[in-house]
């Protein structure tokens, strides 16, 4: 096992590269993934190394891309499909939820769908309504589908390898703002997977538990560092996998601090933060010294373009500090 410094993007590219090299069943498909190497270059170099039968440029047909991946998976391949932006998962939702997620159950275990759908998501990159969305809430209500959101290069690699090895469909959401801005140590080697369904404590703390995922992990850590100077000690939990949710980790942190702040980049109402809050409200009630609090984006249809509006939309370290401070004082 060696460890190298990589960006989130390099870690993801490396995981696909190695999965293709190690397992003949793995194929990569999507729009612009082969010749161009992906609009974010996440698949750069793979065509040259593995050829056009395993790294496949697909037409602009998201339902077709996911549906074809399902067919491949039914035959025993391990397709990794890229949807160019999470905002364009919508045309494929019927295939993802009605087909892939329900295939094993509806056939009583006779068929299964081991496929991964990768999609860049998230805002803060001036991408406006249709290149910034947080779409996880659309995918966390259908059992049969796993949903993964890595927050570090190490996890991105390890979780992606675990997702490819998983016997069921996995939606793998990559925060595009972190692709090149985030670097970190990555353990490579075939055994270095990160299991799905296990959260990580990124920072232990006594006063308030922040439960979050994706880019908000880093905003929360920034907020925690800043609040430490004020004597408020935040614990930061990175869920890493939304489905299956690591309920134990969520309830354990609340048991430790008695205060839960759920931080979400998505808008508030109907978002996945509600599920976390509900789990705590149901099963951690006796441990709570203050109401559960959700910090999320305003309830508007999506992220607006102009910087002033985008800043108003995005949850930031500063907003987290305000909310955590208030909660600590409750």
């Amino acid at each position, binding site marked *: 096992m060696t460890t190298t410094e990589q960006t989130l993007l390099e870690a993801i590219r490396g995981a696909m590269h190695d999965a293709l090299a190690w397992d003949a069943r793995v194929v990569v498909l999507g729009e612009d993934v082969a010749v161009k190497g992906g609009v974010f270059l996440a698949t750069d170099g793979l065509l040259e190394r593995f050829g056009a039968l395993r790294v496949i440029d697909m037409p602009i047909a998201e339902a077709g891309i996911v549906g074809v991946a399902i*067919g491949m998976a039914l035959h025993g391949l391990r397709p990794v499909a890229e949807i160019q932006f999470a905002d364009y998962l919508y045309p494929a939702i*019927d*295939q993802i939820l009605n087909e892939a997620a329900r295939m094993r159950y509806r056939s009583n*275990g006779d068929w299964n769908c081991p496929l991964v759908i990768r999609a860049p998501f998230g805002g803060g990159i001036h991408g406006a309504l249709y290149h910034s969305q947080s779409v996880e809430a659309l995918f966390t209500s259908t059992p049969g589908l796993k949903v993964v959101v890595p927050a570090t290069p190490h996890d991105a690699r390890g979780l992606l390898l675990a997702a490819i090895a998983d016997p069921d469909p996995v939606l793998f959401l990559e925060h595009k703002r972190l692709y090149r801005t985030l670097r970190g140590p990555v353990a490579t080697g075939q055994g270095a997977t990160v299991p*799905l369904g296990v959260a990580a404590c990124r920072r232990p703390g006594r006063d308030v538990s922040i439960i979050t995922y994706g880019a908000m992990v880093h905003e929360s850590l920034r907020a925690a560092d800043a609040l430490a100077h004020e004597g408020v000690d935040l614990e930061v939990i990175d869920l890493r996998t939304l489905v299956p949710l690591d309920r134990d980790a969520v309830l354990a942190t609340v048991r430790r601090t008695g205060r839960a702040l759920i931080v979400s980049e998505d808008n508030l109402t109907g978002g996945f933060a509600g599920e976390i809050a509900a789990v705590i409200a149901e099963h951690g009630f006796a441990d709570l010294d203050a109401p559960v609090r959700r910090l999320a984006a305003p309830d508007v249809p999506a992220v607006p373009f102009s910087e002033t509006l985008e800043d108003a939309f995005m949850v930031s370290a500063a907003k987290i500090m305000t909310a955590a401070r208030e909660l600590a004082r409750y």
Partner: protein
Amino acid sequence: MGSDDGPPALSAAEALSAYTVMVQARAVDDRLWQLSRQGRAHFVITSAGHEATQVGMALAIRAGHDYVVPYYRDMALVLALGQTPRDLLLHAMGRAADPASGGRQMYGHFSSRARRIVSGSSSVGSHLVHAVGLAFALRIGGERDTAVVTSFGEGATAEGAWHEALTIAGIQRLPVVFVCESNQYAISMPHHAEVPVADVALKAAGYGMPGEVVDGNDLRAVALAMRRAMARARADGGPTLLECKTYRLRPHSNADDDRRYRAAAEVDAWRARDPIGRFGEVLVREYGVAPAVLAQIAGQARAEVDQATLDADAAPAPHPATIADHVFGTVAGAAPRSEDQRHA
């Protein structure tokens, strides 16, 4: 060529066995409607009228070798591929032993991994992309001489997913045969309200593949056209769109009343062209089969279906405790987690 007036395209054994399956399929269909009227089957969707199309298709398919991605109307097809009347009754009655879904899907959702019959949802048109993916996988895996067949109604050709499937198959020239069971209606809506052109086969031109109209009530015509298309696919000659013109002889499902949207005279006219009677005549006329043999086949089919009904009736329902089985598979090397699956 291969029509009722052409040279016999099938051997006598093939012809007789095809006829037997058609009759068997109709007997199952008859029984299902009866069970529905008795309140013993909650959902029935008919294949009556489509038997020549479906059994003709099967004559070009190597069961368990070629993949088949069917739709809800394909009961005669899966019978021809080796499912039994008992399998179908277990399915219709939602028994634990239902081989298609263990009682989870309603009738018409045929599946068998061993037979390479792929499980479908009820969403019209959503399954063709799976056929395309399977064909892609065959190519990637170097599995030569194998093809994929998928079927659908003409109404399904309006769906976006239908288009994406044909587009990808056309671009990649994949070994898929797309079979439209073109039966004039999508539930209540006649062809012209569903399809902007007279023949679904005309759509093939936009996907760079051949399109062909076939008399879907003529078993041999279907078998021959299918064999041509499958041969092309197996020889890496690309996909084909086949339109089998036929007619659904009963209402769409047990929830439908077809008198609301079509004239009895129209249905009667098609009844006169029933594909089973028509092929029975061919057997007598061209293959020298004695009418008594046909009667015997019918009697045997009814007896089989009676037995299948008794078996299915006696078979146990799924145990409620199995409701959360097969949500996810087992992850190799993962420790079992305590996460509760049942909250109710």
